[in-house]
Structure formats: C-alpha cells, structure tokens
C-alpha cells in the first residue's frame, strides 16, 4: 500500500516493557504508511524515555512526536490503565510543526504563546493548534489565554493537560525524543481536508448554588462563608477526613461556574483537614457562584456520543479518517465499573468505527467559538477528514 494523501491510524499496547509497549503501539498506528506525526499517551508508571525510544524506532527519524502522561488511555480497542495509546497521521495533505516551552510561574501565558508558534508559517486551508500542557501548574486558563492571544482568532485550539495517574505530584509532556516536565508542547496541524471539533460533558447542577467567599488560585477556602471542606462533606453526607473523602477518586467533586451557555467546570480532588480547604487543578475566582455538579452514567455516555457526533458533523459531510480524544479524568472516575467500556462503545458507534485514540487528562482544551478555551469534565474530540 502506498502512502495515501491523508491517513490516520491508532495503536494500543498493554505490554509491561516500556520500549516494547511504545514500539508495538506505534507500529500498529503507523501500519504501512510514513508518519508525519505521532500522538503518544502513556501512564507515568512507564519508563518514559524507553517508551519514546520504542516509538521513535518505528516512526523513523523525521516524524514529530508529541503527547502527555495520562490518568488512563483510550482508543478504538478500549480503555487502559497504565498502558499506552498512540495515534499517527501522515500523507501529503497534512502539514505539521511543533514547539515546546517551559512554564514560568510568573508568566504562564508566555509558555502558551510560545507553544502557539507551532502554527507559524503554516498556510494550509484548515489549521488547528493541538496542545499538551503540564497539568499541575494551577494556572491552566492563563496558559490557554496565552496561546489564544498569539494566534489568529479563526484557528481553533484543542488539547489536554497531562496527568500522573492519581498521584497529583508531577506530570510529563512528550516532545520528540524528550520527556519534559513543567512544559507546554504545541503541534500546529495544517490540512487540506476539513477539521471538526466536538465538546460535551454530561453533568447537571444540584441546587442550591454557593458563593465562593474566599479563594486563591485553585484553592477554595470558604463557600458561603463556611469552611469549604465542611460544606462539601455536609453536602455529600460524609463523616470523615478529607483523605478518606477524596480517596481513590470516588469523591471527585465537580463544581460548575455559571456561564452564558451552561457551566465551566472545576474538579476538586483534594482537601486539607487542618485548613478545612479544598482544591483542584484550575483557579476558582473569588466571588463566583458555583453549583455542585452531579452526573449520571447515561448523561455522561450521551455526552461522549454528542462530542463525537458534533466533531464529525463539522467535516463538511466527509467521513472521519480518525479522531483524537481528550477525555477528563473526572469522567473516568465517574464511569468506572463497566462505564468505560460503554463510553468506548458509544464513541465507536458515533464515529462509525473510525479509529480514535486519546487520554484521560487533568483538563481539556477546546476553543472554536468565543475566547474561553479551558474546560473540565468534558470530552473534547478532534476529527480529521
């Protein structure tokens, strides 16, 4: 088989040996083609440099490799935990270019703006900036704003924030053969075929709302003038310590901020018994009105199908070659015990069995309309035709 004009493939591996896992998944994704770019999603449990070496071995010296560590991987073959999922694309119809930048605490926007330079000089009819960022900087909005402010507003943004299973200590980004920490990696993708993006979640508000009366960055100290941890424990009818409450992801607390067309969601994943405070990975502005969000399984599965359907619908009637998926770790926690398979099945159906690969992240990036580009608890899909 010769190299088609545009192609997209996915591969997954659960092999314990990191090099073999990387090589195996990459080989499956590339097939017989010549890859221009590979998107690698893997658990921090892997020996990451070895894993990238395996990928490079199959991809050849010229392919761009980008990606991030995850809170679980997903692909056409199913969802994995501690595995690796890879998407590859190639053909003359695609142009790719990459940039990486380290995040400075004082100016996180600058890193976003520099990663956005990946689009520099591209003149393809359809373009998108795909970003993989450190997930624990506490300032995800600023990073995305930095990228948005640096590109033409007609170009969409997608991507995800890296995770580290459920350790919340350090995440990594992949930039060719390097494993970076505290960085933003951008891949500018140009195509002569259409590009579609879908965004959906599946959560709804529980009344009554609360006002964030004291917060700083991603830390919430008070809700309605009361210690935030106390409020969450009470609203959940839970008697115990913060650690018990947030143990094993069963008690991820999605908070929804009131927005013009729905909610902007923050996932709260930890708390402090001393300070009675709680926090997540993105800032919650003081003065904001927030709702505790609840999701039932069906609503989340419907959200997955909707995200895929929306992305495909924007391909001007062409069938999708394949899809990159940025799914929230919070959704994963809500879908555990059988729900993950259902989600994968819902995506397969909505995509008419087109291949897809992606990862469970600490926050999703999607900007098509409007200026806001950071999301949580969503499934963002990027469909390529």
């Amino acid at each position, binding site marked *: 088989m010769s190299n088609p004009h545009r192609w997209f493939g996915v591969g997954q591996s659960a092999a314990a040996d990191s090099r073999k896992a990387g090589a195996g998944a990459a080989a499956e994704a590339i097939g017989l083609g010549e890859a221009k770019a590979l998107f690698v999603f893997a658990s921090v449990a892997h020996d990451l440099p070895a894993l990238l070496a395996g990928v490079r071995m199959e991809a050849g010296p010229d392919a761009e490799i980008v990606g991030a560590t995850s809170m679980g991987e997903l692909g056409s073959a199913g969802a994995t935990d501690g595995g690796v999922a890879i998407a590859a694309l190639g053909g003359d119809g695609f142009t790719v270019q990459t940039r990486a930048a380290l995040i400075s605490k004082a100016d996180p926007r600058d890193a976003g703006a520099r990663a956005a330079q990946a689009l520099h000089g591209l003149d393809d009819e359809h373009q998108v900036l795909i970003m993989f960022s450190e997930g624990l900087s506490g300032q995800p909005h600023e990073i995305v704003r930095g990228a948005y402010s640096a*590109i033409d507003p007609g170009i969409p943004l997608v991507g995800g924030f890296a995770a580290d299973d459920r350790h919340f200590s350090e995440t990594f980004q992949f930039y060719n053969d390097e494993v970076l920490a505290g960085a933003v990696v951008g891949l500018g993708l140009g195509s002569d075929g259409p590009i579609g993006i879908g965004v959906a979640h599946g959560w709804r508000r529980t009344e009554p709302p609360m006002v964030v009366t004291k917060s700083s960055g991603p830390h919430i100290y008070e809700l309605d003038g009361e210690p935030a941890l106390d409020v969450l424990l009470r609203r959940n009818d839970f008697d115990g310590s913060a650690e018990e409450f947030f143990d094993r992801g069963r008690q991820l607390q999605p908070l929804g901020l009131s927005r013009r067309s729905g909610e902007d969601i923050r996932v709260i994943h930890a708390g402090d018994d001393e300070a009675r405070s709680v926090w997540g990975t993105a800032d919650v502005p003081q003065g904001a009105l927030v709702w505790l969000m609840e999701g039932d399984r069906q609503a989340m599965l419907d959200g997955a199908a909707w995200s895929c359907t929306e992305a495909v619908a924007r391909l001007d009637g062409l069938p999708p070659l394949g899809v990159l998926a940025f799914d929230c770790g919070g959704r994963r926690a809500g879908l555990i015990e059988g729900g993950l398979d259902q989600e994968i099945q819902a995506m397969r159906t909505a995509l008419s069995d087109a291949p897809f690969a992606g990862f469970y992240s600490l926050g999703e990036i999607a900007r098509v309309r409007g200026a806001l580009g950071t999301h949580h608890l969503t499934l963002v899909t990027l469909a390529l035709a």
Partner: protein
Amino acid sequence: MPNWSTHLLTEYFTAVNAAEHEETAIASAVERATEMVEAEAGAVVRDGRVIGAYGFGSVVPEIALGEAAAGQPMIEIPYVGELHVASNPLGGETGDALIVARQAEPFDPEERQMLQGMGQVLGLALRSIRVLAAERHLRAEKERQATSAQTRQRLVESLLTIQRAISARRPLPEILDAVTCGAADLLGGAKVTLMLAEGGPDQRLTAASTCGDGDSPPDSLAQAAMAGGAVLVRPSEQGWMIAAPVRVTGEMAGSLCALLASTGGQQTEQRDQLSAFAQQVSLALTDARTVEAVREAHHDPITGLPNRALFLKILNRVLASRGTMADPTSVLFIDLDRFKAVNDSLGHDAGDQLLALVARRLRGCVRASDTTARLGGDEFAALLHDLPVEAAQFVGERIVAAIKEPFRVAGREVFVGASVGVAVSREARQNSEELLHNADVAMYRAKKDGLGRVLVYEPYMHAEALDRLSLRGDLQRALREGEFRLQYQPLIRLADGRATGVEALIRWHSPTRGFVSPVDFIPKAEEFGLIADIGQWVLETGALQVTKWRRDFPDLTLNVNVSGHQLVHPRFADNVMRALAIAGLPSSAVTLELTESVLVSEPDLGRSALGVLRKLGVQLSIDDFGTGYSSLAYLRELPVDELKVDRAFIARAELTGEDLALVRTIVELAQILGLRVVAEGIENAAQLAALRKLGCGLGQGYHLCRPIDPEHVAVRLAATQGESPVGVLDHRSTA
C-alpha cells in the same frame, strides 16, 4: 433559569479590582468580559489608543476599534469575518470604552446591561489605580493612598455581600437596603435613597429604601437622572447631590440618589461608586422579576399547591384528553368560612400557616391522581377525574368535614369551615374557565344558604352570580356618578349636652337597588378593592363640609371611619393630609376611627402610617372598643386619643351591674392613659344618666341625636349651644 450574568459580574469585580496596574486591570477586564459573553475578541480604547487587545490575532484593527468605540455596530476581523460589537463606556467625560466583539449573534439587552456595568467598574478601577499611582510619588499623601485602597476593598466587599444576597434570593427589600446602606457607608455616611417609579402613567416616585440621616433628595433630581439615562452630579445647599439611573431589563425604573455633605473634589470617584451600586440594584430587580415571574407562573408559595393559572392549564389538558363524554370531570370550588376573622385577629403569618394546613388536609381528601390548587385568598379548587357527580359531592362533604375540625395555629386552636361548589363537565367541548366559574357560582350559592354546605351547580344559579358581579359595577358607578352621600351624627359632651364634633357616615341610595346598607356594601367594596377610593371620598367630602360649619362652630371636629384596607395603602397618610389640605381643615380637628381588629392585624404597616398621621396632629380613635381582642399593650403602644365603647355594652334598656362595671373599667382605663371616651348607642335617658355618672365624657346614640343630613346639621348644632338640657336632641328626623 437563574441569571448567569448576575453571577459573573462579581467574579469580574474581584478580578479587575485585584489588579495593581492599569495594564493588568485592562487585560483582566478585557479577557474576562470577552470570555463571559462568549465573544471572540475584546479591547479597551482609552485616550484614543487601543489597549489590551485580545483575540484579534497578529494584526489589531486599531482604526476599526476606534470607530467601534464611537458607536459602529460591526467590526471586520481578517480570516474570521464580521463581528457584532458592544461598546461600553468607562464613565467619565471621555469616549473611553471597553469593547467586545462576537461572531455568532448580536448582544441581547441583558448582556449589554452587564457589559455596561463591566465598563463602569473598569473605569472606576482605572481611575482608582491612576489616583494611587500619582499619589505613590507624594509621601505626604501616603495616608490617603491607604484610604483609597481601603475604599476600593470596601467597595468590593460591599458589592460581594449584595451579590450574595441576590444569589441567595434574599427578600428584595433586604437586598435594596443592603445597597443603600452599602453605598451610604462607602460614601462616608451620605444619605442614600433609592427612588423607584410606581407603575401607571404618571410614574410617581417612591423611596424604596433609604439609609442615612438628613433631608431626602428632591424628586426632580431622580427624575432628571432617569430622563437623561446617565449619572448626574449637582451642587446642593449642603454639598453635592448625585443620582444614578436604575434600569430593569433595560427600561428606566428609578434612580439611586445620594446627598453628600462635601466631596473635597472626589465627585468622579463617588459618582462611579454610586453608579456601581445602581447597577447592582438593576440586576437585583431584574433577577427578582424573573424569579417572581417563573414562580408566580406555576405555584402558590404559601401552600406549595398549583396556582390558578397552572390549575386551569391542567384542567384544560384533562378536558382535551377526555375519551368520551361519559368520562365526567368534576371541579370543586372550596372557599373557607371565617378565614378573614382568623387572619385579622391572629395576623397574616398565622393566616398563611392556616392556609398551608388547609392545603394539607385538602390533599388528604382526594386521590393522589386528583389535582388540588390554591386559586388565591382563601379559595381552593380540586380537579377530580372520572367521578360521577354523586361521588364528587361526597368528596365535597368529606372536605367540609375535614376543614371543620380544629387547626392548631400560633399555639391555639382555630376553627374555620368550608363551603364547596361542584361543577361537572357535561358538554363535549367544555371550557375550563367556564367549568371553574360554574363551581365558583355553586360555592357562592352554598355559602349564601348557610356555611359549611356542598352544592352542585345548576344553571339558575348563574343569574344570582350576575347580581354579585353587577354590584361591583354598581359601586364603581356610584363613586363615579356621585350616588354616595354622607350623614352626620353628632358627638355630644355628656356633661353639658353640647356637640363637640360629628361622625361622618356613608349612605348609598342606588337607582337600581334602592337603599343599600353600609354593612352590606362596605365589605364588598373592600373585596373589590374600591374601599380606598370610597374612603378618600368620605374624607374629602366630610372635611369640606366640616370646614364650612366651623365658620359658625369653630371648635367642631370630624370623626371618619377608616378600613384596614385603607390603612395599609402605601399612600394612606399622604392621602389623608391631601384631603385636609384641600379642605383647609386643621389636622387636629380630625379623628380617624379604626376597629380593634384592624389595629391588631396590621400592627406594623398600620402603625407606621398612624405614627406619621399622629405626628401631623391627626387624632385616632378605636371604634367598637371591648369587642375584639382588647389588649392593653397596644393601647399603650399606639398613638390613640379616643376610645369608643361598643354599643353592645350599653344596649340593654337598663344597664346591669355587670355592664356598668365593664364600662367603668374602660372609663378608668382611659383616664389613666389620658384618653377620651365616647359611649356609643345611647338610646334612653336611663342609659344616659348611668353613663354620665360613670364619668364618661362623650356619647352618641338615637337618644342624643340620630344621623342627619348635612342641611339639618347647622340647626342641630346651634340648638346644642347656649342652654344645655341633655337629651333635647332627640329628633326623629331621618333614619
């Protein structure tokens, strides 16, 4: 759906005010405003320059943004297309503006209102930062810098408190008070008043909330701010006056006014602060109106039952879905008996509590699949599916029995009852309103036949209902065409037989109904909401008449009866004073008579109006004293001047020792409290003698003088002057 824009404004406030430099404040404001309205791009135009452009890509369209600030509604962005623009002034005299541009759709009024607020807040923050920056170089002014920063912090805190109150749906008056007090506090103890336009064509202004001491702002100031749609600053005698307009869903609704003792050249800052508070009022009122509309549209808040509108909707649906005419649908109209008495004597809270308990019992009387509703007041309805008329009647009986059992309200047992009308749909195409109306008619008839009955609607009942309807029309016409007239009954000083005053008594001779007793039409006038107009007519007419008589009898006073419905009217005190002013009658010559039940049931509202009137010199009398819930406590608290002993105590031809003991107690009580006592219903010489002996000061009754037409009054009054044979006024003139 709660108002998302209200929620966002506070986040924006916090973010913008956290900035220490102009650039960060602008960048923060632009980005948040852009994201919040889901716009693609935003910028600030300041002093003719574009600052903080966001989302325009590499080439910022400076000229187009300048035009947008000047009012151009669209802007072209390369590779994106034409975007809708909202340009929001930063306040001050310049053309500075916060601009956002959106591709998908134009900005709706609510969004524009929020963006206007955002522009104001940014302007305020920028000026504040500029002041701070300038002062940073001046050591001498260091203290002031701290104050200004503190003021900014206090502004944010104050607005957060208000925001929280809005979000938590606190009662509207509480929110409005928080606004005026927050503003007054921030403006260094200025008097701040929120003037809101009443409905109606003349758009009169009333003070909805006030904080601080001193004079009230002139109406003209608020009106000017509303007319101009912009914040106004004017010099006043003491210092400065500022007024900021308040809008509800974009329409002008009033004005937030502040009177400042002096400003020391800070008008701009204070004007902006007041404007920010006015914006909060706008949002609170808009939010309240939305919530109210949604809630009112469906459920009654007291009982949680569907309201009339929802009930009719359900009824419509049931009627429309009926398979055949053989499925009868019954509607019960349930009206409580004696509810008003409970409400009047125990107060509204107890009344509401009772309604909620009644609702619970009602639900217990019907099947789960049936619908119960509160139509309003003490009226309820039930919709019964597939029940033949006999069964519906039986349900009605069950309801009557259930409501007859005592209720436990406000710590005591309360007895009410219910009358029920039943209507069954017989026609294939029955109108829901008509069915409910028929049940209402049957209920009315049931009530007339004696309380606690259940009656099924029959067509003949309709004619009777029409009569009731026409009474409303007749009363309106009577007022319009001048069918009412007044008679006057003198109040006689028992010691010397002189008339000290007259009580005005309304009479109605209807051209179609003949003479109608006030006992019959006054409650109806109250029910129909006509009592305020009728009461005002009595007051105006009586005042004019007594003013005339006072030329010959200079000390003559006027007593007028006042209904509880008048008392709670927000302009009651004003109306009384207006009537007296027009007639030229001094307020000290007028005594308003109120029944005990009114005073007890409207303690707060009534008291404030009475307090105002009492301060203005009007006297107050308690009518029918001793019949109600005579409480010594309220006698001491209320500004009362006179007690009228009810005729029931004096009614016996020969007063018993017990009667006399009661009257004596009242007379002595009055003496202790320094009140006048009037004995009502004196009908013979023996009663008169007994009352004189007890030391009762004044009396009324047929034995002294019947109510008489105005043309005879002067003669009677003259007759009481000079010689003083008590009882000579026994004239069988008119009835």
